């Protein structure tokens, strides 16, 4: 799919040369809310590399962003938390069909409150109704992944709540309301001491992929391309890995 | 400016006509619920009648054609001047001072509404407050006034609006005897040469302020004419009650009057009256004597006592529509109690008789 993507090393080399950087103006990056920390850092890196460019960041749920772009929001780059939402834009012709590049993956893990009061040791433990488990609803990407995992492992989770976002699942766990929640690895990393993670060996069955692409009709296509390159390049790789994302 | 109105408000069963000549003050009298306030509300433009017409000076205020005679028909259509453009000020039965304004600002309201400057309006308002003897209340809020004080401010507010036609609904009802005469004097000065309508239950207001009187009853005009004529020669029990005279009606019969009950009363006719014509006789209670047995005089009527009212130096004895004022001693002598039968008698010289 990466036919349009410039080589991963293009941006850093331009930055290190420090000469005749043709990029200027500003770009607006629409990114899934779960990318807030990483993309804020990447935007700073990008601005450092291209002093003439300012990066505006807009974070929201992927589907919110898709609606906004469809209705004319001034986006130059779109980074989605799943492929389905990116597909909506390519279908609508707002992103060139070949443009999206996968730049990260994420897998599910079990988040438990510190001290693990429900003593959850493995995915199968979640089948116990005594363990209050919170998952994502099937309509949202993490819920779809959960469903895939349930099918793959044959474990049915009697969830007490099916949330509409990972953040809500994590919130229930950090507040101690739930004994366990199915979230992404990156969420557990970001949450720090607030939760503990219990790895799921079967998680590879349901990998969530993050695609990124410049938005068609961008006012500053060159800079948009450069930002995509930064994210998919080695700089992006480092930042994303540090946050717990997997390689695509 | 002259004013002319006739209107029908079906819902309240009121159908009245009123004329006020240039500079004339007309008193509207009538029992509770007879339509006095309704009449004023229609004139002021606060109530849209079902049909009718009104004119102030050359201007038509409204000219409405009734639609469907039935009660509950919608208000008629036609030209309609809104209240603020009529130049008619209404002092309603309740003071309704604006609670958010001081007394001074209340009185200055009319002038301000007509675009005068703040200072000018305040000066004007102050002069009016002085005239109603309330200048010391200028800075108070309406909530801090007594009932009578509020009423006086309301009068000042209406007068200060300097309207072409002034409508006053019982302006003196809550006033004490120490301000009433002064206010009456102020009103008399203000109303002189101004067209005005004043609703009152006090015959003194009618005498001192009004050129003409209109008597309403059950939503209809039942009597009207110059004040003295209407009140001294009452045609209705209500008008008679206002001045407190006894009204006896019957048919002329030679030098006397035969009542419906067949009693004969001696009177003196000032005008020629043909035998058999309907006539009224007015006698003041003070001129009526009471006796336990039928007196020899020709003018005497029997009555069953309904009420004995001590009134200071006299006692008023009522028997239905008849009343007599006697001294407390005479009342004691007669041992009057409700239910007793007594005779009311009077001299022909004390009567006023006139055709109805």
């Amino acid at each position: 799919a990466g036919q349009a993507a410039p080589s991963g090393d293009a941006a850093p080399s331009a930055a290190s040369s420090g000469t005749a950087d043709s990029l200027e103006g500003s770009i607006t990056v629409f990114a899934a809310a779960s990318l807030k920390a990483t993309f804020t850092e990447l935007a700073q890196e990008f601005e450092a590399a291209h002093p003439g460019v300012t990066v505006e960041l807009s974070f929201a749920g992927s589907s919110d962003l898709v609606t906004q772009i469809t209705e004319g929001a001034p986006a130059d780059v779109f980074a989605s938390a799943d492929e389905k939402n990116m597909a909506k834009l390519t279908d609508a012709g707002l992103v060139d069909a070949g443009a999206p590049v996968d730049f990260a993956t994420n897998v599910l893990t079990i988040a438990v409150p510190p001290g693990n009061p429900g003593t959850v040791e493995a995915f199968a433990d979640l089948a116990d109704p005594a363990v209050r488990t919170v998952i994502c609803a099937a309509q949202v990407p993490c819920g779809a992944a959960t469903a895939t995992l349930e099918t793959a492992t044959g474990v049915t989770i009697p969830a007490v709540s099916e949330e509409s976002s990972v953040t809500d699942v994590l919130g229930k766990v950090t507040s101690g309301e739930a004994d366990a929640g199915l979230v992404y690895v990156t969420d557990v990393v970001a949450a720090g001491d607030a939760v503990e993670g219990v790895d799921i060996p079967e998680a590879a069955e349901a990998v969530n992929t993050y695609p990124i692409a410049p938005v068609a009709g961008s006012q500053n296509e060159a800079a948009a391309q450069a930002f995509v390159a930064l994210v998919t390049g080695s700089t992006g790789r480092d930042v994303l890995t540090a946050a717990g994302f997997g390689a695509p | 400016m002259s004013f002319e109105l006739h209107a029908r408000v079906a819902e309240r069963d009121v159908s009245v006509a009123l004329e006020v000549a240039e500079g004339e003050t007309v008193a509207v009298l009538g029992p509770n619920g007879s339509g006095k306030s309704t009449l004023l509300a229609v004139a002021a433009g606060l109530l849209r009648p079902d049909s009718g017409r009104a004119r102030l000076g050359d201007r038509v205020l409204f000219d409405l054609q009734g639609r469907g005679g039935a009660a509950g028909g919608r208000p008629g259509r036609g030209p309609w001047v809104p209240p603020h453009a009529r130049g008619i000020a209404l002092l309603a039965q309740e003071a309704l001072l604006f609670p958010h304004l001081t007394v001074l600002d209340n009185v200055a309201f009319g002038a301000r509404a007509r675009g005068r400057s703040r200072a000018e309006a305040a000066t004007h308002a102050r002069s009016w407050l002085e005239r109603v003897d309330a200048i010391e209340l200028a800075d108070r809020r309406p909530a801090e006034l007594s009932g009578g004080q509020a009423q006086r401010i309301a009068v000042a507010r209406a007068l200060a609006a300097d309207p072409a036609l002034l409508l006053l609904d019982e302006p003196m009802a809550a006033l004490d005897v120490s301000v009433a005469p002064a206010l009456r004097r102020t009103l008399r000065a203000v109303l002189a040469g101004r067209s005005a309508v004043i609703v009152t239950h006090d015959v003194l207001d009618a005498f001192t302020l009004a050129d003409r009187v209109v008597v309403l009853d059950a939503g209809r005009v039942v009597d009207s004419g110059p004040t003295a004529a209407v009140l001294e020669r009452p045609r209705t029990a209500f008008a008679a009650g206002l001045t407190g005279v006894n009204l006896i009606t019957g048919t002329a019969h030679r030098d006397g009057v035969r009542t419906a009950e067949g009693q004969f009363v001696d009177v003196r006719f000032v005008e020629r009256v043909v035998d058999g014509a309907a006539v009224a006789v007015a006698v003041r209670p003070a001129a009526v004597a009471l006796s336990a047995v039928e007196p020899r005089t020709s003018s005497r009527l029997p009555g069953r006592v309904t009420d004995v009212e001590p009134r200071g130096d006299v006692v008023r004895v009522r028997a239905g529509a008849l009343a007599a004022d006697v001294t407390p001693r005479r009342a004691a002598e007669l041992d009057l109690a409700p239910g007793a039968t007594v005779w009311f008698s009077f001299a022909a010289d004390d009567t006023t008789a006139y055709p109805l």
Partner: protein
Amino acid sequence: MAGSTYGGVPRWVAVVAALGAAFVLLPLVAMLLRVNWAEFVPLITSESSLDALGLSLRTSLTSTALCVLLGVPMAIVLARTRFWGQKVLRSLVLLPLVLPPVVGGIALLYTFGRRGLLGQGFEAFGVTIAFSTTAVVLAQTFVALPFLVLSLEGALRTVGTRYEAVGATLGARPTTVLRRVTLPLVLPALVSGAVLSFARALGEFGATLTFAGSLQGVTRTLPLEIYLQRETDPDAAVALSLVLVVVAVVVVAVAHRAGEPAGLRPGRRAR
């Protein structure tokens, strides 16, 4: 007391009002135009939609009742008594209005949650509030209560205490005065306040999501269902919103009819 039927409204006021109405109504019209009518009926009669609608109605009505129960006394105390710190209290009581609902949900978790201020006590008695329909009702009541308190308090102040004083001198004890004089007098405001509360409860989303979770038939109210549907099918979300709108319009219209006080109705005599 002769009736004044004065009703002069300046022309420009009507023009601006029309503008305002257009501003509110146009988005609704725009939404109507985008509804996929072909799929409308199957969509809104799906099991999950009906579950959500039923739950929403039940919880909203319950929390409206709670709002009335708690809010009427609160409004009375704020309007009729004077005590130290009253102004601060009034401001504080209005806070759920300004709190972003999600934060409100967090605050509720901190209070009634398993590890919350009161929740720990409840838990000891085996009562769990989180993830239950009770939690939905609590969340809705929390956000809707200020609406009732505020509109009622204003009306109580406007009406004043004169009629209440008359009632008292006629021998009615405070509770009787409240029931027979005060409440009937402010009935229109009470109804408006209840309608506002109901509407707010019906539309409540953030606090419910955070505090109560989202499980079909238990805690997933219509707004949560709409939010979820939107992930996969924006058309479905719009169609469901329309259902919410219709329900709200019906409730509001019925309530306003019921709340119109007989005594203040213009005109016509009883006989």
